[in-house]
């Protein structure tokens, strides 16, 4: 056998040779003084390096590592950036606000809650909320929670809080996008309406059922409010321990004209904050450009279940203060609302106005928003238990004439 190279000598030293190879090297070393000398030299060098590197071995008090505890801490630390964040972002995205007023308020309520292990909550839930009418509130868009920039501290704290405390019992998953009404109706289980004057929609996005629940933990809510600098908001003591469950049925969004592809709906768990910001920016730019796009959203009423003795008015008051209403306004508004039947839609005060109109044979609410690129409307009404939202660029008469052609 020829002499052994240093690599194989090293492998021999480290016990990484086996079988015939090991036998061959061992036999050679027994007969070759040169290789044996190199092997010993390598061994000495290895031992010296190992001795130096061994000084880095942690002291005894650094050796105890509890991986399970570490995982719990890791999950806590990064919870806000994981799956629930994207799910929550999706619901809080500006495009959803018209149709999801109640969900948004419910999520604001979610910010006021915390989770206990799921107990026999169904037994405790006696009151059911169903949307029968719509009421608009104006909020200051410049306050903490309304700006919803994903890198702002309150937003992050809020997300983390929701991720920690809201239990998603039914994840909507990715939306299905279909090009014909029959398929959409099959997915939703209810007929898809059409804006006659615009023909058939280019595509229909069907969002899956969503359900989440949370239990109010007053201490945790107070801590959150402290952290975001809103010690002025009062959480009623009676709310502590209340379990709130929200169920949102399948939603159909019919898109007419050149509607942009909404990347925001493609949930990505690997999204960094920078990516999220860029995505948000792209969405805003798309909003500015999609002047030829009209949405018709059909959303059967969400159901919110709460304990019968929960004072919804007080909770809603706190939630509305959080999203930018001043305390006096929030109080007087909340006293006028029947929280068991009203979809509350928060709209920015500076750029929006609203009016009551007749649409589809019922009373509706027309919200108009003045933007640099022109007016935008959102017409909301409830018919047969289904919330409708018609949204696009244009003025009040554009909205009403499109709604008149609905079939």
């Amino acid at each position, binding site marked *: 056998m020829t002499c052994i190279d240093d690599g194989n000598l090293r*492998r021999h030293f480290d016990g990484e040779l086996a079988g015939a190879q090991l036998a061959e090297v061992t036999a050679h070393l027994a007969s070759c003084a040169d290789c044996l000398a190199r092997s010993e030299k390598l061994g000495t*060098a290895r031992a010296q390096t190992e001795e130096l590197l061994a000084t880095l071995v942690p002291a005894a008090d650094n050796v105890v*590592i509890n991986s399970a505890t570490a995982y719990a801490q890791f999950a806590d630390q990064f919870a806000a950036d994981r799956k629930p964040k994207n799910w929550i972002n999706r619901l809080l995205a500006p495009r959803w606000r018209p149709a999801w007023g109640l969900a948004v308020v419910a999520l604001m309520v979610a910010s006021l809650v915390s989770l206990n292990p799921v107990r026999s909550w169904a037994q405790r839930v006696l009151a059911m909320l169903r949307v029968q009418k719509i009421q608009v509130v104006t909020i200051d868009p410049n306050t903490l929670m309304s700006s919803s920039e994903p890198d702002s501290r309150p937003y992050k704290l809020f997300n983390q809080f929701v991720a920690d405390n809201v239990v998603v019992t039914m994840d909507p998953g990715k939306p299905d996008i279909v090009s014909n009404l029959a398929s959409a109706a099959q997915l939703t289980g209810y007929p898809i309406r059409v804006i006659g004057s615009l023909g058939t929609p280019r595509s229909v996005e069907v969002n899956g059922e969503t359900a989440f629940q949370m239990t109010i933990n007053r201490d945790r809510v107070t801590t959150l409010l402290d952290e975001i600098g809103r010690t002025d908001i009062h959480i009623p003591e009676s709310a502590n321990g209340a379990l709130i469950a929200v169920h949102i049925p399948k939603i159909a969004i019919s898109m007419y004209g050149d509607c942009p592809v909404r990347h925001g709906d493609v949930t990505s768990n690997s999204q960094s904050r920078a990516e999220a910001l860029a995505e948000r920016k792209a969405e805003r730019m798309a909003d500015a450009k999609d002047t030829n796009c009209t949405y018709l959203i059909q959303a059967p009423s969400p159901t919110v279940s709460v304990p019968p003795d929960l004072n919804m008015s007080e909770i809603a008051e706190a939630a509305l203060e959080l999203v930018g209403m001043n305390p006096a306004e929030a109080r007087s508004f909340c006293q006028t609302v029947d929280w068991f039947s009203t979809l509350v839609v928060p709209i920015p005060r500076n750029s929006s106005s609203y009016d009551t109109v007749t649409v589809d044979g019922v009373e509706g609410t027309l919200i108009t928003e003045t933007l640099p690129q022109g007016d935008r409307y959102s017409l909301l009404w409830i018919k047969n238990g289904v919330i409708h939202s018609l949204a696009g660029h244009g003025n009040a008469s554009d909205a009403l004439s499109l709604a008149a052609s609905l079939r």
Partner: protein
Amino acid sequence: MTVRKSSSEHWEEAEFRAVFLEHYSRVLGILIRLLGDRSCAEEMANDAFWRLYRQPALQVDGNVGGWLYRTATNLGIDALRASGRRRQYEEAAGGARDQAKISSPLEVLLRAEKCNRVRAVLSLIKPAQAQLLILRSSGLSYKELADVLSVKMTSIGTLLNRAEEEFRNRYLALHANEEEL
């Protein structure tokens, strides 16, 4: 090294937890060796796992452990090199700080000094060589090292020899007067 079979789009919670529990203590141990500071090491270990969480495709087609040890040691060596540069500036400014307490027993002081020297040398040699040495001294087998470095297992012996030689030469060049190898 574990190859997971699951979705390439996102980590299943249970899968990710299993990977975390399987590798965390070793990853942390390696980073403590490299950095000498447990809280820094924990932070960096979390960073490595967070990066892993953002690579769900590794569940399906990857060698998770190899990727994880490579990423963690890269992070640690980067930090070591950065602190090495900082230390040079501090020493140049006459502000060298001693990590060990003056009041500690002499052995503790000497050991701490030696640790600092070893880390300084690791920060000076090629990162891939430092990576190999720290992983080997943390107990990774040839097979595991081959997975981390994406090289053939039969090359590991040669690579180890070269890395050790480079390490010892650097160490001697810097510290021949302080001690004998």
